[in-house]
């Protein structure tokens, strides 16, 4: 665990520009080493969480994680308020710049609360203890005769009380109490944790005053748009700027080189032709008027439909064995009463956050300042130091609000673009992607094909399980020519399959990347959960068993896997979300004609989640009527926020199940905008019922992502239940079902 330290006021002022006396505490949190982090981050003691109690009583928390709608600013603040016994009104949150002092700031992997809750609580408790010590001295009583409540320290003998702010200056002179003397509150005494807290940013969100990246305005800034090659990694052969140059407001047009990242880290930028103008619209118009001839390069013949066929073929044949084999599947298949096989497919997907990628940059010769909606400001900063050869300490990355991230904004190519343009034009500039740019030049969620074969004995018990999967790896974006899934990808639902099946074999087939591949909310879990849950449903039907009972039987005896980890897998908790969801959805009761229920259960980001979906199918058109989700995410920090996240995850999962498909022809993406890359809308939105398991004594686990992967398989299983038709290839729109 991290050490809590007092931070020198002068250093703090230097770092944050926040002047005022009082206590400033900092502590460091180590990164989650199991997760994949593309860039090197500094190790050793770097306080990366800060709170500042000022003399006026205000408490400022420095949020080192990016806010993209997951509510982290509020969640972190509530942990401090809880242990400090603060009045919520006095708490405010400042967004941290990108700096290695904050440790790993990469906001992904649903890990912010998981890694930061405990240190935040300890800092709050430390500050409280220091305030009590000062007050006890003033009253000349024992600290045990004092308590803190609602921003005051109270003398329990005389009922006198002193305001936190009035104690701050003296408290700052005290040494930090020893960690072993710090006592955290008991679950039953919580006032903030586990309750329903509203977002700390609601006023700005409802008045249009929250500053997202695209809202940054710097005096005399220019606006820029870039046309990038429609084929991944293609380059400019020639271009004619005559027509574009005549667009009113356009001031400059030039070629942007491709900046190739060094192997193993960073994102670089694609290059293309940049149009600089005095407003965004003019830059967009200039882009349309450009006449560019491309060297399309190695990916020019890429066709995603052909690739789907190729992957589908490959998964029918033996692939590379993935460790974790048990027994012998072939023997099991030969000896079985029945075998079932099926092939599943999920297309490429784009994140499409409502705020398109954008960044504002000012290259000032020896310094760079950036304002951007980035999930990973440190990688952005390191990238800039690398590509522009400026010492990293001279680079400031200011993190704005993110208008959605979903993984897209952890890739900082758009930041590199803004800096490259600012350097060239010697002025501050904002680069804005059009929606078409966002859809057509993204880092895509990988398409996948998977083949499953299972065997049943005469009692309908599963005796063998073979799963073969192929998908272009995210690693290909860092190490070109990576053609197999990496460990962190395969461990997302595939190798950590919890079912107790005697004969078990996993294989991975080759899948080359012809687009930039990147992680998107829930990542590989999306296809893992789709394949496994769809196939379990098929096996259950073949065994003539109820799917819920069938999942329970597959789990076998209650057990704990990865016992040494802080977050061991507990099959009891997995079973519990399954049965709880089934119960809340009235699983097994008779439904109206044309309606069907489907279930899916999955373990991701250390959380257990099960979803039941009710669909109605009329004239082959599917409507999602109800979604019931139960999550066990350990300690539920902010319940209303968790509900909001899971409601949103249900809609996100629906979008990919119903409409999600990015395809490529002759290397270029064929979708353009929201009219052909569609999203779930209000009229499609079902009734969503969220249930959070009371597990307040368990450590907190992921919330932002786990709600997504279960949705598509639950929908497809519900369609089968309603119609007897299996959907094995997403999305439904391709099958004329929406």
């Amino acid at each position, binding site marked *: 665990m991290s050490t809590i330290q007092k931070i020198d006021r002068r250093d703090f002022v230097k770092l944050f520009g926040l002047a005022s006396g009082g206590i400033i505490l900092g502590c460091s949190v180590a990164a989650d080493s199991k997760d994949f982090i593309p860039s090197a981050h500094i190790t050793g003691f770097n306080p990366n969480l800060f709170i500042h109690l000022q003399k006026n009583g205000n408490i400022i928390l420095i949020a080192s994680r990016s*806010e*993209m*709608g*997951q*509510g982290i600013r509020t969640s972190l603040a509530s942990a401090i308020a809880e242990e400090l016994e603060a009045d919520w009104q006095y708490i405010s949150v400042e967004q941290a710049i990108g700096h290695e002092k904050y440790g790993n700031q990469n906001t992904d992997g649903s890990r912010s609360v998981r890694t930061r809750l405990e240190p935040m609580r300890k800092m709050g408790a430390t500050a409280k203890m220091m305030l009590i010590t000062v007050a006890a001295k003033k009253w000349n009583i024992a600290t045990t005769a004092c308590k803190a409540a609602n921003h005051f320290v109270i003398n329990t003998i005389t009922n006198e009380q002193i305001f936190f702010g009035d104690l701050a200056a003296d408290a700052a002179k005290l040494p930090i109490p020893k960690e072993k003397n710090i006592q955290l509150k008991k679950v039953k005494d919580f006032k903030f944790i586990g309750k329903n807290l*509203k*977002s700390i*940013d*609601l*006023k*700005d*969100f*409802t*008045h*249009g*005053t929250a*500053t*997202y990246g*695209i*809202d940054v*305005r710097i005096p005399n800034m220019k*606006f820029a748009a870039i046309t990038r090659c429609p084929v991944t990694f293609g380059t400019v052969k020639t271009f004619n700027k005559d027509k574009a140059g005549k667009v*009113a*407001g356009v001031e400059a047009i030039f070629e942007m080189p491709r900046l190739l990242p060094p192997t193993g880290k960073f994102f670089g930028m694609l290059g293309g032709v940049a149009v600089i103008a005095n*407003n*965004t*619209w*003019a830059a*967009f118009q200039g882009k349309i008027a450009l006449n560019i001839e491309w060297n399309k390069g190695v990916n020019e013949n890429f066709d995603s439909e052909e690739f789907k066929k190729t992957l589908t073929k490959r998964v029918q044949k033996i692939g590379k064995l993935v460790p974790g084999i048990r027994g012998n599947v072939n023997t099991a298949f030969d000896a079985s009463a029945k075998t079932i096989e099926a092939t599943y497919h999920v297309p490429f997907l784009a994140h*499409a*956050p*409502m*705020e*398109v990628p954008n960044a504002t940059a000012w290259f000032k010769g020896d310094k760079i300042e950036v304002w951007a909606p980035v999930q990973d400001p440190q990688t952005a900063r390191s990238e800039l130091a690398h590509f522009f050869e400026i010492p990293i300490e001279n680079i400031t990355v200011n993190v704005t*609000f*993110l*208008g*959605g*991230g*979903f993984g897209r904004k952890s890739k900082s190519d758009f930041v590199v673009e803004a800096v490259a343009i600012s350097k060239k034009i010697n002025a501050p500039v904002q680069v*804005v992607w*059009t*929606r078409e740019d966002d859809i057509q030049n993204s880092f895509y969620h990988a398409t996948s094909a998977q083949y499953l074969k299972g065997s049943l004995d005469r009692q309908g018990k599963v005796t063998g399980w073979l799963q073969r999967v192929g998908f272009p790896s995210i690693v290909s974006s860092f190490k070109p020519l990576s053609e197999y899934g990496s460990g962190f990808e395969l461990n997302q639902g595939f190798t950590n399959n919890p079912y107790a099946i005697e004969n078990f074999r996993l294989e991975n087939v080759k899948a080359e990347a012809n687009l930039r591949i990147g992680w998107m909310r829930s990542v590989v879990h999306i296809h893992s959960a789709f394949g496994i849950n769809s196939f379990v449903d098929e096996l259950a039907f073949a065994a003539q068993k109820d799917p819920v009972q069938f999942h329970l039987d597959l789990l076998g005896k209650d057990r704990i896997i990865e016992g040494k980890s802080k977050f061991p897998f507990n099959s009891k908790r997995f079973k519990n979300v399954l049965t709880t969801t089934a119960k809340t959805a009235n699983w097994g009761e008779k439904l109206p004609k044309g309606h069907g229920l489907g279930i899916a259960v999955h373990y991701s980001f250390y959380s257990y989640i099960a979803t039941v979906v009710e669909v109605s199918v009329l004239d082959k058109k599917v409507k999602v009527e109800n979604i019931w989700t139960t999550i066990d995410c350990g300690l539920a920090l902010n319940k209303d926020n968790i509900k*909001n996240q899971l*409601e*949103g*995850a*249900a*809609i*996100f999962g629906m979008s990919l199940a119903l409409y999600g498909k990015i395809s490529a022809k002759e290397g270029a993406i064929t979708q353009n*905008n*929201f*009219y052909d890359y569609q*999203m*779930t*809308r*209000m*009229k499609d*939105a079902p009734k*969503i019922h969220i249930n959070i398991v009371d597990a307040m004594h368990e450590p907190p686990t992921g919330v932002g992502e786990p709600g997504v992967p279960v949705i598509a398989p639950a929908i497809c299983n519900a369609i089968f239940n309603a119609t007897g038709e299996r959907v094995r290839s997403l999305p439904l729109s391709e099958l004329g079902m929406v």
Partner: protein
Amino acid sequence: MDINLSINGKLHAVQVQEDMPLLWVIRDIIGLTGTKFGCGVSQCGACSVLIDGKLTKSCGIPVSDAIEKDIFTIEGNSENLEFLRQAWTDGNVPQCGYCQSGQLIAATSLLDLIEKPTDKDIDEAMSANICRCGTYTRIKKGIHTAVKLKNETK
């Protein structure tokens, strides 16, 4: 050309191309950034404003069509918008918040037209606005809450 625009009751004199979409005049020329860019093709509703009370996607109309009309944006104030803001707060509606300017303007327009909208009215009126975070359940509830809040103050 020289154009006078009335936004939230305030006059703005701007010099712009007459075919520039109103969205970009509001954001880049006048500097009111609460109205958002989402798609540029009237598909997502992030840029919604009211023009003479009529719900309009500001990315889809040239500024010349807004001359001598009253433009209302998220930075403005109206009775229905205030109740909606309160309801959005009570229901903790936003996640990332980006689309909510447009959602609130579209909801304002709905309440301006229909005093007590049904779920079906809401589905029809609000389906032009995309929320990628997926806050539809809360938006729908928020509109009903705003109606309730308004009735309670009567």
